[in-house]
């Protein structure tokens, strides 16, 4: 079994991404969550860089740079400012306790791996084996959005889901065309802004970022 060194590195980074997804699922503090999101972005940028270098796909260099600028530097910084302004440093509340969430997470990972294996066999890219991990990251981020009660962790879950999708695109097809990628990057950026504005509105309306309040339609 002679897998090239670059593939091994990408596999290692993929494993790191999955680990971070689980760590985010288990994390109780908002600030650490943002830090982990930044690390996830860094791992993503590094793996994209390795794929770009080993396959000679030039547009992937741009995606890596974009990921680095946006997901490692800008969005974490914006989120930091946001929680400073909103003054939210409380511990995160979860709907299900954390070990149970982890067990559900393992189930999701097994599901994702089972789903991805036949697809990966059809792909011919160097990095096809990481498709399952990308899918698992997406599903775990979904889970995080479901089990968290407050708005900020949900948004981080959403952003990390985008990380998973991006990783899936890199591993399955060496990345999407640059135009699409630029579009997505812009979407994420605009999404973050809109979420930020939403946070302020939610808090003004309900004095809290707990989205349970939004389930009630009437004033009581």
């Amino acid at each position, binding site marked *: 079994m002679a897998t090239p060194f670059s593939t091994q*590195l990408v596999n290692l980074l993929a494993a790191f991404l999955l680990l971070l997804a689980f760590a985010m699922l288990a994390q109780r503090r908002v600030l650490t969550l943002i830090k982990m999101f930044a690390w996830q972005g860094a791992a993503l940028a590094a793996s994209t860089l390795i794929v770009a270098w080993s396959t000679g796909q030039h547009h992937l260099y741009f995606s890596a740079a974009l990921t680095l600028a946006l997901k490692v530097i800008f969005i974490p910084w914006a989120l930091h400012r946001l929680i400073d302004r909103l003054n939210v440093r409380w511990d995160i509340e979860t709907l299900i306790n954390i*070990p149970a969430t982890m067990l559900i*997470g*393992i189930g999701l990972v097994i599901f994702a791996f089972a789903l991805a*294996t036949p697809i990966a066999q059809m792909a011919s890219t160097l990095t096809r*084996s990481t498709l*399952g991990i990308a899918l698992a990251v997406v599903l775990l981020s979904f889970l995080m959005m479901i089990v968290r009660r407050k708005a900020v962790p949900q948004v981080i879950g959403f952003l990390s889901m985008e990380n998973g999708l991006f990783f899936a695109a890199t591993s399955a097809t060496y990345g999407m065309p640059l135009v699409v990628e630029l579009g997505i990057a812009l979407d994420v950026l605009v999404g973050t802004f809109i979420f930020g504005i939403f946070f302020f509105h939610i808090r003004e309306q309900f004095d809290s970022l707990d989205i349970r309040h939004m389930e009630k339609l009437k004033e009581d």
Partner: protein
Amino acid sequence: MTTASAVAFQLLQSVFVVLVAPLLIGWVNQCRAWLQNRSAPSILLPYYTLAKLFHKDAVIAHDASPLFRLTPYVLFGCMWLASGIVPVLATSLPFAPAADIIALVGVFALARVFSALAAMDIGTSFGGLGARREMLIGFLAEPAMLMTMFTAAFISGSTQLTTIVDTLAHREFAIHPSLAFAAVAFAMVLLAENARVPIDNPTTHLELTMVHEAMILEYSARHLALIEWAVALKLFAYFTIGIALFLPWGIAQAGDWAGLPLAIAALGAKLALGGAALAVTETVLAKLRLFLAPEFLSTAFLLAVLGMLIHFLVLG
């Protein structure tokens, strides 16, 4: 390789392990003392303690059953057997086929059952409390331990520790993310199983927070000495299992007397590093509340399972 030579190697390893195990405890305690800015006790202190305990007269409660007297010998025997099976100095030892990794975990479980029974035998409240806590930790740590070992077993295609070590030590260099996951999980299990800091404090004097110490409160003299020695052997066995699975380089073949000095030197270096790392971990971390122990160990289990899954994905 002649049989006699291999048997001699096995005997040498068994004797070596029993004699060296307290040294590891002494080294860890010394490192801890340095890190905590205390003046360190001698590295030989565990030997003095053992000698002192062996010279005292044993005191045993009136209500103690024969099980209570028997347990120290069972514990010592189990741990000695375990460290005889693990390839510490050499692979393909004659004892090695006696038990694979699953049986090895079984040997540790046997020791745990006996110590829990003995703790409840006298009927003191602390004994029962310690036994229950120990069983809680044990039942959470065991699956994580098995999963860790399965990851290594899948990579090398065998559940025999000897084969695993042979395969891992003599392969071409490759990054195995799954092994990295398994190593972290194993380190967490090691801390929990050996009653080290985030789960239990081996130096505590506060009975209410004790886990392992609470179980052996009633023991004295030679019984206590055997138990302490068994604890040292258990730590040694876990360290050598960890070394065998994740850092197997430099180990000798049974009967290969020329490779022995290198094997001993490599083992000493790895153990010194591992012991220092353990001391650092114990200094940096604080003891967890008992109710957080399930979370700690479920994280270990999660890491081990992830490691195994990633192994399948990367190969499949």
